[in-house]
């Protein structure tokens, strides 16, 4: 099998201290990429990821960055670029969930979800693309969700943010194609993470009955799709949303 091409590549992953983000960080670093992940507030979890990386001889760095803050994103990206002189891969993974029926959603529940999930994608991507445009290469991978396409009670805010990611992905793919930068998304279904714990607790059996494979996904199963899109195997793939959802049924 030919080499994935990830060795020596410079990657930034947002929301990398836990869940799917952590699995992505570890998989890319395991392939020899120099990964810096951003985390917002769980310094302890972040330190754990860095320490585990160091133990395994992998290059993992961490920066505390709130993706809602455009300037913080730009500054952090420049710090990474100053160190590494290039940025090859951006994984926009940071996301939050504040489920509730629309009538009961507080202003802050709407704002936090949109500002983080889609605002953060804008902030990070805008900061990174000057480097990729000049390099004439780059891979941008956005974490979407099955809820971008399938309705779910209590998820207007989350679904809207993820639908926006899919639209963003397709438009940016058009913009950046002349510079050989690919832009894709991965849309997970229900994955066993802290973030989906409430959904699984509240509607576990009902949710499982909608999944063809009758089980939840594991974080690393999503990370494999990100790995593929970040690798040279996906050089000819752009503007796509890849579902990793165990076959979530249409309703």
């Amino acid at each position, binding site marked *: 099998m030919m080499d994935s091409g990830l060795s020596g590549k410079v990657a930034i992953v947002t929301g990398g201290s836990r869940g799917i983000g952590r699995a992505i960080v570890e998989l890319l670093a395991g392939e020899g990429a120099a990964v810096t992940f951003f985390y917002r507030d769980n310094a302890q979890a972040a330190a754990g990821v860095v320490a585990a990386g160091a133990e395994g001889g992998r290059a993992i760095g961490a920066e505390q960055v709130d993706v809602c803050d455009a300037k913080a994103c730009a500054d952090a990206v420049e710090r990474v670029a100053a160190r590494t002189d290039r940025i090859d891969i951006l994984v926009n993974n940071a996301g939050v969930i504040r489920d509730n029926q629309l009538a009961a959603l507080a202003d802050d529940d709407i704002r936090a979800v949109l500002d983080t999930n889609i605002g953060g994608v804008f902030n990070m991507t805008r900061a990174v693309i*000057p480097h990729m*445009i*000049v390099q004439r290469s780059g891979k941008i991978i956005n974490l979407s969700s099955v809820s971008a396409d399938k309705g779910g009670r209590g998820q207007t805010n989350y679904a809207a943010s993820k639908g926006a990611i899919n639209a963003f992905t397709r438009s940016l793919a058009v*913009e*950046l194609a*002349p*510079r050989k930068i690919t832009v894709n998304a991965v849309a997970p279904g229900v994955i066993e993470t802290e973030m989906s714990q409430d959904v699984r607790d509240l509607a576990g059996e009902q949710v499982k009955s909608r999944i063809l494979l009758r089980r939840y996904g594991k974080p690393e199963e999503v990370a494999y799709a990100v790995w593929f899109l970040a690798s040279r195997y996906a050089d000819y793939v752009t503007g796509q949303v890849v579902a990793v959802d165990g076959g979530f049924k249409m309703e």
Partner: protein
Amino acid sequence: MAQNEISKEEILAVYPKVAETMADALGCDVEEVKLDVSLIEGLDAESIDFLDMVFRLERAFKIKIPRGKIVENARGDLPEAEFEQKGIVTEKGLAQLKSYLSEIPAERFKTPMKVADIPRLFTPETFCKLVISAQREAKAAA
């Protein structure tokens, strides 16, 4: 800083590095980047090439060039409403533009001129002036 204070000597001083940087962005030979060639019509530059040029110039000269800076510089002190109306450059605006882009022959300014078409006028000399004014602003701020 008014552009008429930028001398030809200053422009020629930055031109070689600007031309080299622009050639890298456009993927063309540096000899093709003549001081007065239209970037869009003469060198087939597209909108992403303009971004590429700006990013490279920022690095090469260690300056910051805010997006939309050329039109902003051209507009000078003229309020936006007096410079353009509904996307068309006003008479006053056109006079201002011609004075800022003094290196560009008068016959290349078409009327009515759309704001969106202003980049069609740009030449490497336009970017030399952009670099010089950014250097001056950086110096003034220091």
